[in-house]
């Protein structure tokens, strides 16, 4: 479960790292991804994980154009500011609009995919039980993180994205089209939310406000792992996941939330840049 939190946080951290914007709509993007995956699986009868070939491109372009059409104009209006506040407000607006649109279109019902080959699959070692879809979630998180890392390090576009994230103006001077970079970064961030959605769909419910549950955890993880750090997002996710699954064995489940938030505060006090954050960025 922690790795799926990590996957959600990964998209958030990519978008933050590049755009320097906290994307409040990220949970909603995850929710959109879950609905896309749900309908893709229900209509085509595909194996849930094969629906990735539909969900990822759909989500990529959804993110790409969301950035291009909705967020870019605001960005242009605020181009002199390093961390544009209004964009954050716009993403909050996008969050509300997406959640309520889904509520209008699909209603508040809870959906789950009944007949999928992964549902309820377990690997048993005596007393230990591991959920198969969650195990695949972990694999997906590691592969995605590795792929994103490779993309940022090795490809031309990836380098352009990193350059822009370091210094927007200098990158522009070098002939990088910063808004294209933003679109692509937002698209990648949304696509990772799509991957997280696909790994969730086999065992989790789909409903319009599902994103909120993952949103808050995503923020905590991103801060914990260090804003903008890919490895940090995954590791932060695993840490939170471990606290959530081991904690309740020793105390009531409600306490784990207190621990998670306590840890969050502790990290903010001791190492505000997060476990893997880069100091000079602050």
């Amino acid at each position, binding site marked *: *479960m922690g790795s799926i939190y990590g996957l959600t946080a990964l998209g958030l951290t990519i978008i933050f790292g590049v755009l320097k914007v906290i994307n409040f709509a990220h949970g909603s993007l995850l929710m959109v991804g879950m609905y896309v995956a749900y309908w893709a699986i229900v209509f085509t009868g595909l194996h849930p994980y094969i629906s990735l070939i539909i969900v990822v491109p759909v989500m990529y372009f959804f993110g790409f154009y969301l950035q291009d059409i909705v967020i870019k104009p605001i960005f242009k209006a605020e181009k002199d500011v390093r961390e544009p506040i209004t964009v954050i407000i716009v993403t909050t607006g996008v969050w509300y609009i997406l*959640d*309520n649109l889904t*509520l209008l279109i699909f*209603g*508040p*019902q*809870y*959906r*789950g995919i*009944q007949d999928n080959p992964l*549902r*309820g699959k*377990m690997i048993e070692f005596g*007393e230990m*039980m591991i*959920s198969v879809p969650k195990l695949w979630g972990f694999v997906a998180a590691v592969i995605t993180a590795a792929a994103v890392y490779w993309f940022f390090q090795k490809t031309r576009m990836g380098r352009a994205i990193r350059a822009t994230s370091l210094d927007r103006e200098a990158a522009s001077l070098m002939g990088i089209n910063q808004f294209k970079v933003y679109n692509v970064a937002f698209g990648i961030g949304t696509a990772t939310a799509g991957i997280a959605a696909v790994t969730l769909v086999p*065992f*989790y*419910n789909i*409903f*319009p*406000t*599902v994103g*909120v*549950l*993952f949103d808050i*955890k995503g923020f905590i993880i991103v801060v914990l792992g260090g804003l903008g750090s890919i490895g940090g997002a995954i590791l932060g996710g695993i840490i939170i*996941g471990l606290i*959530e*699954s*081991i*904690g*309740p*064995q020793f105390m*009531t*489940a*409600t306490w*784990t*939330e207190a621990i998670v938030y306590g840890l969050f505060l502790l990290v903010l006090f001791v190492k505000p840049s997060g476990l893997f954050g880069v100091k000079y960025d602050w």
Partner: protein
Amino acid sequence: MNTKFKFWGKLTAIFAITTFLAVIPQSPAIWAADNVVKVGNIIPLSGPSASVGQQGKNAREMAVEEINAAGGIKSLGGAKLKMIYADSESKPEKGVAEAERFINTEKVHVLTGCWNSAVSYPTSAVAERYGIPFIVPVSVADKITEQGFKTVFRIAAKDSWWTRDQFAFLKDMEKEFNTKVKKLAFVYENGDWGKGFAGQWKDLAKKGGYKVVVDEPYPSTATDLSPVVQKIRRAKPDVLMLVSNAADAILLTNTLADYKVKLKAIIASGGGHADPSFLKAAGKNAKYIFDIVEWETDVNKPGAKEANAKYKTKYGYNLTGEAVDAYLATYVLKDALERAGSLDPAKIRDALASTNLTSSPGMIVGYDAVEFDKTGQNKHASLVMVQINDIGKGLERITVWPKVARRAGYTPIFPMPAK
């Protein structure tokens, strides 16, 4: 501005108002035309309980449509009911703020809501302060009607009755199937509702001689309940008792099946387990769960089948206990308004207090009358237990307890067979 003009303007305005006021008493037609009873409804339309909130809204809409089509409130010159909705998002502070807004800005005559006990409780204090009658169709926390308030009226049974009946049911099952139950596990949502239930369960368990092996609250917003389920699995209880909202009910049921937890029975407490999407989303994992409800589609009451059929064609799913309470509440309000013959909140309140509703299109519940005691609690509200099972027509909820109400030809499955 010209003072003369101002003076004349004022004079005309005063004149216009006085004429208008003078005309009203003599012509009931004009009076009725802009005469509506404003009902403020605070229900969760988004957030974790949105699904239940929507059903409550649908049921209210259906009742209002019927009442208005039948000529509205006759003693008020055919006044129409006008429902205004606010979304509580299941948050107490939202409920309180919306109640203030309804009373001060919208000038509602009556309030209803809020489904979540945690929201109804503080909201009832707002209604009491302004003297606005507050009808609570279903919010089960005992304390809502135990604050000595004059304006709170609850249709549904309160939670001490729910827990009492759950244990009575368990005892009866043990006797009927000759199976001993010793160890109980309590798992409940971390709100007013769950905690209220759990507190009473603990007392009842002590009285009944049961051993409580798990006593675990959890946050309803949890995304992963497998740690809780593992805890249950290791404690090896005979019976698991649950209080859950919808998303967590589905998650718990599926996780319990995933981890192959062996239990003799699962007893749920309505809410999430009674949500129509629960059966769809949990599927065969929901089989054999017992649930306590106020109403089931197979209830033997005139008009119930028709009302359910109408509701189903309109909204696509069956009426639930919550929806029926909301439906009935609207008719109770109509009855009180008819007898009050006034829009004065104090008069409506008095009329509600003297309610004794036995026949009404809204009376499709399992009991025979709505009558409020001193605290505003409906004295007659009662409950039934159902079991979720598939007897050839897909999963459905089958009434099993009390034995007189059991669906003909059905024997409950107890203990639960291994899946």
